[in-house]
């Protein structure tokens, strides 16, 4: 192996009294892709931030080209050719794409900015990742995946010696993942050292030259990627044997009542004519490419954004849902895909976040803090949330935030649950638990809609899958038709819908 460009030696890191990294060693070699794996909260993001100069280490050494070095700021890291793509978006929402791409290193012509050139270059960088986003769009107007592609474009534009990517694929669809991987391959060939994390082990197997696995702040395995299987990775991460990822599907019991009936649901600009029946005990998947309007359709259903038409019946009774509280009153809950901006109050600790939506259950005249604490204990246990209770949740690891969000939604005891990308950023062990948990909920008589951009997840979990394309419902797949191929065909609009799927809305059996 060539000499590493960047190495960590015995790195420790504490937040207050809690030490989260207990002496990490890591080597990044040129032309190699290194995968860093571990459970949520294992310390991956923290290690990466130390590598790139975003956070100081409490102890230990960083070696750059074999010489000990210290990064006092991300700027130092960047000067040394180390670029990082964050797990959380590091884009200023009120600025345009172009302004973000060149933030802190604007091109100038004399004293003034060379806007034309920056716009031109932005377009080129975006084109490298096949993104058609206009450089003059405000970042706040982009969808999550578009933001991520902008981040990637921004990072690629900086000609890094070391590229660090913290869960770059979590918000991407498979097509975008392919685009990213092509770029990574090119960088590897050009001699860049690459470190990335992902909870999608197939991606790791496909891309990585070397794998390092962390558990509870320590490295438990490090070695060439071809010497460890996906199962091996999972086992090393979780610390126990993994059984099947997806729970068994019992199938919708015949004669199960329809709990949610939707006809002609439309949400201006985003979705038209969505209609389906959701049975008790069923998990309905919602597939489509990014921007297909799944999120917006379901937000319209749950009263979060105005819907422009459609009939909704819950348990046979027509209901009007104009605001989220109406939906909650019918015990229809929505778990957002965007935990940072729409899911959690990042500046508050766990307790108020957990009970925010179900606060009425904890408050007569006054809030019962003891009951809240008990609920939090329970949630921490049920969802295996790791991190300090007193810290602001913005400082929790990404996966643990997602678990907290799930716990928050579940506290409202939904009868009908819509979960949007529920396992985004969740480690494989917990994913398995969440799948089992969703299936158990269904078995207990709840009805669930799962939106996911991970095709495998939908196929593994859902009883039926509704596919959307450009705001329209293309069909509902079930039984043997539940295959990646047929979903993709519908999502791309290349198949004759009727041959692959039932036409919707179908008449319940």
């Amino acid at each position, binding site marked *: 192996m060539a000499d590493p460009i960047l190495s960590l030696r015995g790195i420790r890191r504490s937040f207050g009294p809690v030490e989260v990294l207990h002496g990490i060693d890591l080597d990044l070699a040129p032309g190699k892709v290194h995968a860093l794996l571990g459970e949520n909260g294992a310390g991956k993001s923290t290690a990466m931030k130390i590598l790139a100069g975003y956070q100081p280490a409490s102890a230990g050494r960083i070696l750059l080209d074999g010489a000990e070095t210290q990064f006092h700021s991300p700027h130092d890291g960047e000067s040394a050719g180390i670029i990082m793509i964050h797990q959380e978006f590091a884009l200023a929402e009120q600025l345009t794409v172009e302004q973000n791409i060149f933030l802190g290193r604007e091109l100038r012509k004399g004293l003034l900015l060379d806007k034309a050139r920056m716009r031109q270059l932005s377009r080129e960088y975006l084109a490298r990742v096949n993104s058609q986003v206009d450089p003059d769009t405000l970042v706040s107007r982009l969808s999550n995946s578009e933001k991520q592609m902008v981040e990637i474009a921004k990072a690629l534009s900086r000609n890094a010696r070391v590229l660090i990517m913290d869960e770059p694929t979590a918000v991407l669809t498979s097509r975008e993942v392919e685009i990213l991987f092509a770029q990574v391959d090119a960088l590897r060939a050009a001699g860049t050292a690459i470190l990335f994390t992902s909870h999608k082990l197939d991606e790791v197997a496909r891309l990585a030259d070397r794998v390092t696995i962390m558990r509870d702040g320590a490295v438990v395995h490090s070695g060439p990627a071809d010497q460890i299987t996906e199962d091996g990775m999972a086992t090393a991460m979780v610390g126990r044997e993994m059984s099947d990822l997806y729970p068994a599907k019992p199938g919708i019991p015949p004669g199960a009542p329809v709990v949610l009936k939707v006809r002609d649901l439309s949400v201006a600009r985003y979705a038209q004519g969505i209609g389906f029946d959701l049975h008790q005990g069923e998990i309905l998947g919602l597939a489509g490419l990014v921007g297909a309007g799944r999120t917006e359709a379901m937000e319209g259903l749950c009263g979060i954004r105005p819907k422009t038409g459609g009939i909704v019946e819950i348990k046979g009774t027509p209901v009007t849902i104009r605001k989220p509280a109406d939906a909650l009153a019918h015990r229809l809950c929505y778990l957002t895909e965007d935990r940072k901006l729409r899911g959690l109050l990042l500046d508050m600790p766990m307790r108020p976040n957990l009970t925010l939506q179900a606060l009425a259950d904890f408050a007569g005249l006054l*809030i019962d803090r003891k009951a809240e604490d008990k609920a939090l204990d329970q949630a921490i246990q049920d969802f295996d949330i790791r991190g300090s209770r007193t810290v602001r949740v913005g400082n929790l690891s990404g996966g643990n935030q997602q678990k907290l969000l799930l716990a928050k939604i579940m506290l409202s005891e939904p009868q009908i649950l819509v979960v949007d990308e529920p396992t985004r950023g969740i480690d494989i062990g917990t994913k398995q638990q969440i799948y089992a948990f969703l299936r158990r909920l269904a078995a207990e008589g709840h009805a669930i809609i799962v939106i996911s951009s991970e095709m495998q997840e939908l196929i593994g979990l859902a009883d039926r899958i509704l596919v959307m394309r450009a705001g329209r419902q293309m069909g509902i797949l079930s039984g043997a038709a539940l295959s990646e191929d047929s979903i993709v065909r519908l999502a791309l609009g290349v198949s004759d819908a009727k041959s692959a799927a039932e036409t919707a809305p179908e008449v319940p059996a």
Partner: protein
Amino acid sequence: MSDTTAPPRRGFTLPPMTVIGPVLALVLLIVLGASLNSNFLSAANVTNVLARSAFIGIIAVGMTFVITAGGLDLSVGSMAAFVAGLMILVMNAALPTLGIGLPLVLLGMGVALLAGLCAGLLNGLLITKLGIEAFIVTLGSMGIYRSLVTWLADGGTLSLNFELRRFIRPIYFDGLFGVTWPIIVFALVVIIGEIVMSRTSFGRHAAAVGSNEHVSHYSGISVARVRLVTYVMLGLLVGIATILYVPRLGSASSSTGVLWELEAIAAVIIGGTVLKGGFGRVWGTVIGVLILSLIDNILNLTSLVSPYLNGAIQGVIIVLAVILQRGRKASS
């Protein structure tokens, strides 16, 4: 459960600087006052300071909610002047019919509360329904109420009928067990405010709305309603403050309540509430109000500096009080 989940810490630890900071500043001021003048801690002086803090204090409690929910209200000073003017006008007008007595006083109180409520509602509706910055709406209504009271008073002073003033004077100057009414009402408002802020759903929702509107909306909270209620509450509290104010001076004019808004906002921030919203504490606001009142009081206790420089001393102490609170730059 992993070992990084720190158990809630037990045992004694010093509360953080953000908590002791304002308290410490207050204590320092009290020590300073007591060392400068032996009458400083006399019952009379303490009563004076507390009673006069009541107006701003009651308003500042309302302001704490507004700011916590991510809003701002620059109009409270003029609103108080306007409400006071209206209350005086109505009481004077009803005097011939009702005669001096409890019904008239109750009428006056009712008018004050109603006017405050409406004024708050108006601010709140413009802000939440039309989605205009609170700063602009309340800057506008500040001008409007100030003009209206000048106009009602025809450029001069609106005065309560003299006999009537005698009759309602006790509302400011008398009390129960030696504690005057303004202090009692202030204390009640603070206690209720603290409970509402820290122990009820509404307080939680206000902080949530101030912290992140989207998250609140997704969690089924009606963001507009919570905001609106904070403004209405503030309006009502301005009404209550006015009810205590009118008996004290018996008049209202265009100079009534000038700059109360800045004082109330300063008290809220000195108390540790975050100006951008998302976190508020009522008890802190009380400390802030007391600090501001004590500065004036202490400056009157001594003739150390030219009165021209009073403003400078106030400015320095306000900044120092907040520096104390921060300890050092919040490492963000």
